[in-house]
Each structure stands twice: as structure tokens, then as C-alpha cells.
């Protein structure tokens, strides 16, 4: 009961928002990601992330130094003419639009080193100074048949 009262109190202090706006904004972040890969814009890709990022690569423990990991990965992908495409299959957005989770398919191809993979990514996204930033990045790879 106390939990419900606390939730009600927190909800009462939230500013009114429009979920449609958040969906549009989050789709724009995904578009910016795909464009950043095509344009080999490592800085633009890294700018999509917040200052503190939970980086959870397949088979590894969580690394809280995710921003450096992201820069390293995107430098590698773009430096090898790789192509990474994200789509959005599921979006969870908090009622107050301060937190969101984006889930979708990822297709990664780096022909120069024989990478041709697919999987699922999950972004945890926080509204920081009015902009959605990735604060958690977890993904898996699904072996091809």
C-alpha cells in the first residue's frame, strides 16, 4: 500500500507530457544512429550517448566505461567500411518521459573482416537536459543458419 502511495506522489509531481512526442524523438535518435554509421560520423554516434553508459556486450560483464567502448567500436566499424543498421521493434516510455527502453533488430556487416551478423539490441535511454541519451547498451548476436 505504501508503495502505491509513493508511486502516486511521484506521478503527481511529474510534468504533463505527450507520449507521441517522445516516440517521434526516439525514432529520430534511431535515424541519427543509422545516418551516423552511413556517414562514418564517429563523433555524432558517440554524442548519442550520455556521460555514464552501461555497456553490456555479449558474453561479458557490464562495463560502466561505456562511452569509451562505444567510441572504440564505432571507430572500428566505420574504419573498416562496416554497415550497422538498427530498427525499432519495441519502445517502452515512462509516463513522465524521463526514461525509455528501445529494442530492435541489429544487422552488422563488415565484409573486410568477414562479419555478417544479426541480433537484438536494447538501449536504455534517459532524458538529459531535454535530449534523449543512451545510458545503457546491451546486445546479442544470433548465429546464422
Amino acid at each position, binding site marked *: 500500500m505504501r508503495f502505491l502511495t509513493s508511486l502516486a506522489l511521484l506521478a503527481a509531481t511529474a510534468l504533463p507530457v505527450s507520449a507521441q512526442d517522445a516516440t517521434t524523438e526516439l525514432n529520430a535518435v534511431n535515424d541519427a544512429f543509422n545516418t551516423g554509421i552511413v556517414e562514418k560520423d564517429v563523433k555524432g554516434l558517440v554524442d548519442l550517448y550520455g556521460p555514464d553508459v552501461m555497456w*553490456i556486450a555479449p558474453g561479458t560483464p557490464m562495463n560502466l566505461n561505456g562511452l569509451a567502448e562505444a567510441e572504440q567500436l564505432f571507430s572500428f566499424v566505420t574504419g573498416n567500411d562496416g554497415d550497422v543498421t538498427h530498427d525499432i521493434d519495441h519502445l517502452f516510455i515512462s*509516463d513522465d518521459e524521463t526514461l525509455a527502453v528501445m529494442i530492435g533488430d541489429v544487422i552488422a556487416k563488415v565484409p573486410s573482416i568477414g562479419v555478417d551478423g544479426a541480433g537484438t539490441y536494447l538501449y536504455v535511454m534517459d532524458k538529459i537536459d531535454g535530449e534523449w541519451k543512451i545510458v545503457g547498451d546491451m546486445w546479442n548476436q544470433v548465429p546464422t543458419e
Partner: protein
Amino acid sequence: MRFISTVAALALSAGMALADAKQDVIDSLNAFNDLFNEYTVAKNVEGLVSLYAEDALWIEQNKPLAQGHDAIRPTFAFLASKNGVNDHSIDKLVVADDGSLAVMVGTAIVKVEEFNLDTTGTFLFVMKPEGDSWKIVTDMWHQHQPQEQQ
């Protein structure tokens, strides 16, 4: 002067109430994790499945995304049938300011003696409040590879 003092007192009181409310939400997420571990120890498969929304997303390592209780149940049923250990601890909690969405990231210790399995992994739960507790709406997890393979 008295008016200013009254306003300051009200602001302080409101701030404390909000801090208490946020702590209640954190406490409830910790209690949820305790319940998950209790159900695992008790081999309560249906109890574990009930912690998930009916349309929860299940994203396990090396597999495409699946959805719903039928996708979730076999893992817990397998662990229960093999007297397996699946102990979760919380490493990070991210909660919306209004408490309407939360993300729990943690470490899972998984052991199945019969298969000589003794491993750790990372789980990520996306959670929504329901009634006086929470439901997992997404569970993404993987086991950690041995150090030399990372």
C-alpha cells in the same frame, strides 16, 4: 518573515516526502529481487513466471527475441528440475522520476551440478509497476564467457 519560514518548511517537507517516495520505489525493487531468488530456491516455477507480464519479451543469448510465458517457462522449469542455482544480485537500478518504468541490471550466478555448469552472467530487466509490486516486461540476459575467450 514568518511567511518565508512557512514556505521553506513546506518545501523542505515536500522534498523529504519525495525522497521517501523514491526510496520506497527502490526498496520495492530490492524486495522484488529477493522474491525472485526465493522462488528460485523453492523451485516455484509458476511463481517465477508470474513475475513476468504475459507479453514479456525474452531475449536470451544467441537466440532471436521471443515473447510470452511459454517462451520464459522452460528455462525456469529446467533449472528447477536439475536443482539448479540462479542467484540474482542487483548492480544498477535506473528508475523514471515518476516511478512508472524501471531498469534493473545485475549479476546472475548459475550452477547446474549435473552438467558441471558453474557460471556468472548479466541480466537486464525492464519493469513496470503493477498493483503493489512490479512486472518484468523484458528480460535480456547472457552468460559470461571464460576470460580467455572474451
